[in-house]
């Protein structure tokens, strides 16, 4: 097995994924002068600021106008630019989905949609801002790549990879700090899933902030005598079918884990794959057709049944 250069749990860091995006965008800007950035009055919050300061002539402030942001980006891409648009996911793609479909995805322009403050890690901002539907919405859009990085270091790599990808891309980011598990040497490629922890009894497919919870649960379960394989699946679309099917061939039991609506996201993608190629029992874990609410990320993760202990319970359930 390839060494993924992951950190031991005791050495995990802590940083919001949006910080990694901010660093990655500056690097992408240095690597390619066609990279430009657009923001809708959230420059600091969504971490566009480092790019805007370094390349002011390549930054466009559109004001609080997310529909305009992505359509302007479409026009810039028409003239050879690689535009990164960033706002909160609740507004982009939450408010401007049709403009993304028509002027970016159907129009086939390589615009990069960055949805920050997605998921329960948006914490105290409450249900209006905890975008949980973004993964499902973007996954249904033909020609769109959907990426949910597991930590800030991976978000940085994903950003640089997106600048080189010719397709429209969506990148989901979180507001609050989450564990940093990977290192500069850990591989990342769009469309690849990675076995972060090998096992033989049960497969957990997770992404975003949930991968760290899956790894912690797998550790504890090993002491309970259950050998869990954790697949980190940052690209929801296109899905890495081979990595998932190879694991499932061995374990015959699957749990999917995501911090998003359970309808249409990673769990749905995995179930669609397995239903057609290798039907095995699956438990999907995610937010179950509900809206979020104000609270700390920890309180919310626990309330919506996505904590380490919840994962362990479900693994025991499926392992029998």
């Amino acid at each position: 097995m390839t060494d993924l250069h992951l950190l031991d749990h005791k050495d995990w860091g802590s940083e919001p994924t949006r910080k990694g995006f901010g660093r990655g965008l500056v690097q992408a800007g240095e690597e390619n002068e066609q990279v430009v950035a657009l923001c809708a009055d959230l420059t600091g919050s969504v971490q566009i600021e480092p790019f805007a300061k370094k390349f002011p002539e390549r930054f466009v402030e559109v004001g609080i106008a997310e529909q305009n942001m992505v359509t302007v980006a479409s026009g810039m891409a028409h003239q050879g630019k690689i535009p990164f648009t960033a706002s909160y996911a609740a507004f982009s793609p939450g408010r401007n989905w049709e403009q993304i479909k028509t002027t970016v995805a159907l129009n086939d322009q390589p615009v990069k949609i960055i949805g920050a403050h997605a998921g329960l890690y948006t914490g105290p901002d409450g249900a209006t801002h905890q975008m949980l539907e973004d993964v499902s919405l973007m996954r249904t859009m033909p020609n769109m790549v959907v990426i949910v990085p597991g930590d800030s270091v991976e978000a940085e790599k994903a950003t640089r990879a997106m600048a080189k990808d010719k397709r429209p891309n969506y990148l989901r980011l979180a507001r609050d700090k989450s564990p940093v598990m990977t290192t500069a040497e850990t591989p990342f490629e769009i469309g690849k899933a990675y076995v972060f922890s090998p096992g033989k009894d049960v497969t957990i497919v997770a992404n975003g902030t949930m991968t760290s919870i899956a790894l912690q649960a797998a550790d504890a379960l090993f002491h309970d005598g259950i050998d869990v394989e954790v697949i980190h699946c940052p690209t929801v679309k296109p899905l890495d079918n081979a990595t998932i099917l190879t694991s499932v061939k061995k374990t015959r039991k699957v749990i999917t884990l995501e911090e998003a609506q359970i309808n249409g996201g990673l769990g749905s993608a995995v179930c669609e794959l397995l239903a057609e190629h290798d039907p095995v029992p699956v438990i999907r874990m995610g937010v179950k057709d509900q809206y979020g609410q104000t609270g700390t990320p920890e309180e919310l993760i626990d309330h919506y049944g996505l904590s380490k202990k919840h994962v362990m319970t479900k693994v025991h359930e499926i392992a029998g």
Partner: protein
Amino acid sequence: MPTNYNEKTRSIEDLELMANTIRQDIVKMLEKAGSGHSAGPLGLADILTALYFDIMQHDPKHPEWDERDLFVLSNGHCAPVLYAAMANAGYFDKKELSTLRQFKSRLQGHPERKSLPGIENTSGPLGSGLSQAAGMALAMNMNNESHRWIYCVTGDGELNEGNIWEAVMLIAKYNLHQITTIVDRNNIQIDGTTEHVMPLEDLRAKWEAFGWHVIEIDGNDVEAVIDACAMARAIVEKPVCIIAHTIPGKGVDYMEYDYHWHGMPVGLADVAGAPPVDEQAKVALKELRTMRGKIKNEHGHD
């Protein structure tokens, strides 16, 4: 480097005849398709003729020529006039016009950039074209291209969309004066007159309040369109909006000014005052061919 298509200058009379040809093509296309929009495309024929046959630098044999001016159709439902203008300009064989809205046609019901070379933007859902023009202009500025122009046609009903005014503000903020916006002010939309559905007036004052220079013209006068666009290129301190007053259904008596023809093709709709459905195309084409009886010795056939 492709030659500039419009080095061949045409007289105003020639351009008026071209607009008339384009109108006849629109009527034939819509009758064949059995669906689509009539009033807007007929009303826009003079503006599209002026743009494609006089104003814009472009090369139909090299649609990707990187020095070309850009035409952005924001109200994509007016696709028939765009296709007819492009075919007459030489982007593709005119025979293909008869495939409008048919399975596997490059002439999709609403224009798609990936479907037909020469289409700059995919449109249909309203309110997005002006933003795309803004993005094109921002990129041109970053690339230090000051010699290219962007012409964006929007509907007037389309101005109901908030996205348009987001673009209007942004274009004024960055003074993207290489964009000339032409509002097709034909006063109709699907549900009725614009002033009934959602009043737009004082439209001139609205654009001016947003920091734009406004020129009002008769949008069915080819020469007026050419002159206004020339003036727009000369004005650099503000972006320019040309409010082009047009007659919806222009050239076909029974359609003119009647909002019922907004979303209807000829040969399908039983509209009061119109000929029977199976006569509609014939009547319209005869009227256009004879230029309303001005050409007396008419003995052409459909």
